[in-house]
């Protein structure tokens, strides 16, 4: 019986092997690659995937593969070289940096095209069960910065504010409790740059530091308090929305698309008198919004099938136009003229310049 068991096990493995073996044989053209490989920002990911799916279903090309690696990680992969092993397109929730362009050209990625796809708003939201907050960027800075101006002279003190009322008597008397992304997130970077710095530089003496000591200026304006008022809630925005529902006193920081999808549960705070609404973000009135991009490797356009088609699909009116399907997913469209410009850039594969 013991022997039988060993035999049975062996023959089972063998049977499994023969069943799956045909599938193991690499495709004839495994050396090449017959699908587009896209990497990059997790903010652009929801939009790029919709375009990829649409492109795969409506054309004869295969559906592109979209990896969510973050803007920095994506551009690093994008800039690592030319050839089928390297990605063809990189998504980014910020513009490519000089250092990354240098890295690219060092690795032979000299020609690429930049296409701006639209905007993403960052919202500060709370539960619909609570009152709607109306704040300025200055208040946000005072509520969340690590060190704040003491009010007397040009001195910084560790953030003393415990409730919103402490900052401004007109605000409600509830504890400052903000759930937001961790430092690794692009949303956090954008929030620090647009909201925190936006409020910070309204102090003229802090703004004056910028010229003398850029590093110190950045440290003052971008540092977020660590005494428990700002809670790092991980990269999962779904979780933040759930927590806001459970705790009406808490606020959350995330992308506009999450507010849009959960509008029956949460509301976006008014910033500098502007509501976080579609039209306001599109017109640029809402102060905390950032542009989104993708970069196309020109050397791959003839190499990988479907590259031009993908760009065409992404830049078509039915995708990124004011009534397109990307808008339905939470993208904020660019004005007509800008869309026209980037559509042309995409068609001609215009060379990137800083």
């Amino acid at each position, binding site marked *: 019986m*013991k*022997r039988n*068991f*060993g035999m049975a*096990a062996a023959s089972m*493995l063998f049977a*499994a*092997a023969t069943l*799956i073996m045909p*599938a*193991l*044989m*690499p*495709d004839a053209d*495994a050396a090449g*690659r017959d*699908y587009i*490989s896209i990497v990059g920002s*997790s903010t652009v*990911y*929801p939009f*790029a*995937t*919709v375009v*990829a*799916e649409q492109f*795969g*279903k409506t054309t004869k090309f*295969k*559906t592109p*593969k*979209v*990896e*969510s690696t973050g803007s920095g990680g994506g551009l690093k992969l994008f800039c690592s070289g030319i050839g089928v*092993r390297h990605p063809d397109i990189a998504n980014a929730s910020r513009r490519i940096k000089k250092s990354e362009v240098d890295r690219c050209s060092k690795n032979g990625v000299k020609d690429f095209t930049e296409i701006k796809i639209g905007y993403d708003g960052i919202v500060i939201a709370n539960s*619909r069960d609570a009152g709607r907050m109306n704040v300025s960027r200055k208040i946000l800075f005072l509520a969340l910065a690590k060190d704040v101006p003491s009010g007397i002279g040009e001195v910084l003190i560790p953030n003393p504010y415990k409730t919103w009322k402490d900052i401004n008597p007109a605000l409600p008397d509830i504890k400052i409790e903000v759930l937001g992304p961790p430092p690794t997130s692009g949303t956090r970077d954008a929030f620090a740059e647009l909201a925190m710095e936006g409020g910070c530089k309204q102090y003229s003496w802090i703004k004056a530091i910028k010229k003398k000591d850029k590093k110190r200026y950045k440290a003052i304006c971008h540092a977020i308090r660590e005494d428990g008022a700002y809670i790092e809630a991980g*990269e*999962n*925005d*779904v979780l933040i929305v759930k927590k806001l529902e459970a705790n009406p006193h808490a606020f959350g920081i995330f*992308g506009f*698309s*999450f507010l*849009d*999808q*959960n*509008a*029956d549960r949460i*509301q976006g705070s008014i910033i500098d008198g502007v509501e976080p609404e579609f039209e306001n973000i599109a017109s640029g009135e809402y102060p905390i919004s950032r542009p989104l991009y993708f970069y196309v490797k020109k050397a791959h356009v003839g190499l990988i099938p479907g590259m031009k088609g993908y760009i065409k699909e992404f830049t078509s009116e039915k995708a990124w136009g004011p*009534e397109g*399907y990307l808008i*339905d*997913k*939470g993208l904020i469209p660019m004005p007509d003229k800008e869309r026209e410009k980037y559509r042309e850039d995409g068609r001609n594969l215009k060379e990137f310049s800083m």
Partner: protein
Amino acid sequence: MNETEMRQDGSGPRLQLIKAGLKRRYAKEKIFRTLGIAAIFIALLMLAVLFVTITKNGYGAFEQTFIRLDVAFDASVIDPEHSGDPDVLSSANYSGLVKKTLREMFPEVKSRRQKRDLYSLVSRGAAFHLRTMVMADPGLIGTTQTVWVPADDDIDMLIKGHIKTGGGGGSRVKADKAAWVDTLVKKGAIEKRFNVAFFTNGDSREPELAGIRGAVVGSLYTMFVTLMLSFPLGVATAIYLEEFAPKNIWTDIIEVNINNLAAVPSIVFGLLGLAVFLNFFELPRSAPIVGGLVLTLMTLPTIIIASRVSLQSVPLSIREGALGVGASRMQAVLHHVLPLALPGMLTGTIIGMARALGETAPLLMIGMVAFIVDVPSGIFDKATVLPVQVYLWADSPERAFVERTSAAIIVLLVFLLIMNALAVVLRKKFEQRW
């Protein structure tokens, strides 16, 4: 004599001491037992909470809302020249057909904005569904058919009661849309059906079209590669170390290293995979072959350790008996020791594989955390795996992905349960005790 006396009257000092301590010892034992039971109870409670929440959140995803449309497959739209050319049929404007049908169902809708709302009642997959129907049977052209198409995810959530309507204008489903849905419900044109697409489709950004087949197949390929490599390698290593290798400083070093590797965080194996398999051997990114190789590295120590333990538990007399009747050492091991140790080895392997099945961290580094629609067709094809699919869906803004995430977790748990049950059955059936 004295001692027996003392015992009989029960008042000797030693007995007194024992009696006094007895109560305390019983009490201690009782506390210990209660604590043990409490620990088990708490663990079971946690497990129950986990299962109940996941099932409660997830069972809804096994049903999907469908809307009935009476679609007129108009020849002038699909194939105006009656060419019957598959290219013409495939590129025809099927979403136009869907829109036309919806307009006919609600003739009162006039404004552009309202029409847009109306069109968004049904999934964008409806047009693809019609295309598939026509491609399969071009004879449908010119006829009117009753077709059940999947509803949009917002409508699906509304029907399932996960989304509120109206109320302050904040909802995804506006009042007029909710009214149309009511009309459809009254007409019996909305129905919840078993969600076949969830099991037959690959990933999609439309929750109503998203399925786990791609991830399941990807997981199977990855597990296959892992099993094919880690089982033979692990068992061979264990046999050599246990039965043949001399006990010296080198084998000690190897043993320490194997035990160490078993405790290394899995992300480290991912980094190793990135450096070795992708950058040095230039294997394709996001492929099950690389995922399998990385997970092999991760499961090997577990399998080796389990296999060695199970070899150690085979009594020495079996080996000596075999050697005594003239078998060579290899014959003794292969014919007598190995068959007895195999059930234990398989159990260890299955448990190692179950761990590998639930792993995401190392796969992040080698590009398997990706949006992939096509179901993979081989171990060199681009693929993702079940736990990664769970992670990706959990991160999606669409409300309907919440229940799909839980449903995918249920599927993953079922697989794990099957594997662990298999391990128990194998052990029970073939284990020998001495």
